[in-house]
C-alpha cells in the first residue's frame, strides 16, 4: 500500500511539473501530451490492487498470461522508480529540445519579418533546402547582406 502511495505521489508531482512546463512554453505540447499520457498510465497500473487483477484474470481464465507477464515485469516499487527516472530524463531532454526549437522559431520569424519590412528577399527568393543549411549557405547569405 505504501509503495502504491509513493508511486502515485511521484506520478502526480511529475504530472504537475510537465503541465507547468507546457504552460510556460518550455515543453512543446506534442511532447508534453505523450509524457502526461505515460504518467497517467503508470499511475493507473500502479494503483490497481494486485488482488483485483488476480480476480479479473482468474475470471477470464488468463492466469497463465498474468503469471508469464509477472515473470518479466514485477510491479514492485523499484521498477516504477526506474521508469520514473527514465521519464525524468526524457522530460529534461524534451525541455532542452523545445528551448532550442523555440529560439530557432523566433529567429526564423524575425528574419522573415525583417526581410518583408525592407522589401528584400533571400537571393534565390526560396527557402533553403537541408543541403544548403548543411553547407552553410545561410551564413554566406547573411554575410554578403551585411557587407
Amino acid at each position, binding site marked *: 500500500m505504501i509503495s502504491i502511495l509513493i508511486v502515485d505521489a511521484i506520478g502526480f508531482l511529475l504530472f504537475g511539473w510537465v503541465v507547468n512546463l507546457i504552460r510556460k512554453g518550455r515543453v512543446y505540447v506534442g511532447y508534453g501530451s505523450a509524457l502526461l499520457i505515460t504518467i497517467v498510465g503508470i499511475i493507473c497500473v500502479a494503483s490497481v490492487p494486485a488482488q483485483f487483477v488476480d480476480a479479473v484474470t482468474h475470471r477470464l481464465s488468463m492466469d497463465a498470461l498474468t503469471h508469464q507477464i509477472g515473470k518479466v515485469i514485477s510491479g514492485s516499487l523499484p521498477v516504477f522508480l526506474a521508469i520514473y527516472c527514465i521519464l525524468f530524463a526524457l522530460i529534461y531532454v524534451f525541455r532542452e529540445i523545445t528551448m532550442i526549437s523555440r529560439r530557432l522559431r523566433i529567429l526564423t520569424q524575425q528574419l522573415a519579418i525583417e526581410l518583408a519590412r525592407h522589401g528584400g528577399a533571400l537571393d534565390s527568393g526560396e527557402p*533553403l533546402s537541408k543541403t544548403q543549411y548543411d553547407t552553410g549557405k545561410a551564413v554566406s547569405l547573411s554575410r554578403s547582406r551585411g557587407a
Partner: protein
Amino acid sequence: MLEPLERVLVAIPAYNEQATIADVVRRVRASLPEFDLLVINDGSTDSTSEILRSLGVVVATHLCNLGYGRAIQTAIKYAHQLNYDVLITVDADGQHHPEQVQRLYRESRESGWDLLIGSRYMETRDYSREPIGRRMGMQLFSVVVKLLSGRAIYDTTSGLKVMRRSIFVPLARWHCLDFHAEAIVYLLSLGYRVGESPISVAERTAGQSMYSFASLFKYPVNTGIMTAIGAVEGKLLQRRSSA
C-alpha cells in the same frame, strides 16, 4: 468603400499553395485595395515563392516550415511591429471570399470585437459537409469553449479572423498551437471580446488540407491540453493584473 481610419493588414499564410495563391492575392487586392497585404510563405517547397515574386507582393518567408500557427504568429508580430491597428487573416486555399472581409471588418469596428471569427456554422450549425473526424473535433471544441468560457463559438477552426491591436501582444507572446480553441479560450479568460459573424466558403479545389490522418488523434489531445491550460493561464494573468 471604407474611409481609411485605421491601418489594416490582410495576411495570407501559405504553404505549398501554387495552384491557388495567385488567384487569392489578385482577389484580395481587387476587393480590398485600401488594405495592406502580407503573404507568409511558410517554407513552401513548390513554386509558391516564384509566383509571389512575380506578383510583387510583400512576402515574409520562413526559411523552413514552422506550421500554420507559427505563420499566423509571424503575421501578428509583423502587424504589431509596424503599428497596424487591425490584422485580418485569410486562407491561401481560395476557400474564403475576400469580398466578405469588408463586412467583417466593419462589424468588428462597429461592435468593438477584439477578435471576430468568420464562422461557417454560426447560422446553420450544420457540420455535415466536413469529414466525420473533423466534424467531431469541431463540435467537441465548440462545447469545450462553451464549458470553459461560457461563450458559444461554433467555428473554432476558421482561418478568416479579424484581430484588433489589443490582442496582438497576448497572442504573440503566448504559445498557441493553431490559434483555434486554445487562443479563443485564452483571450476570453483574459477578458477580451471574441465574436463570430457568418460567412460562406467555397469548396477547396486544389492543394491539401493541413490535417492528416495522424491529426485525428494528435489535434484533439494537444488542443485539449492547450485549451485547458489557456483557460487557467488567462484567469491567473487577469487575477494578477487586477490585484
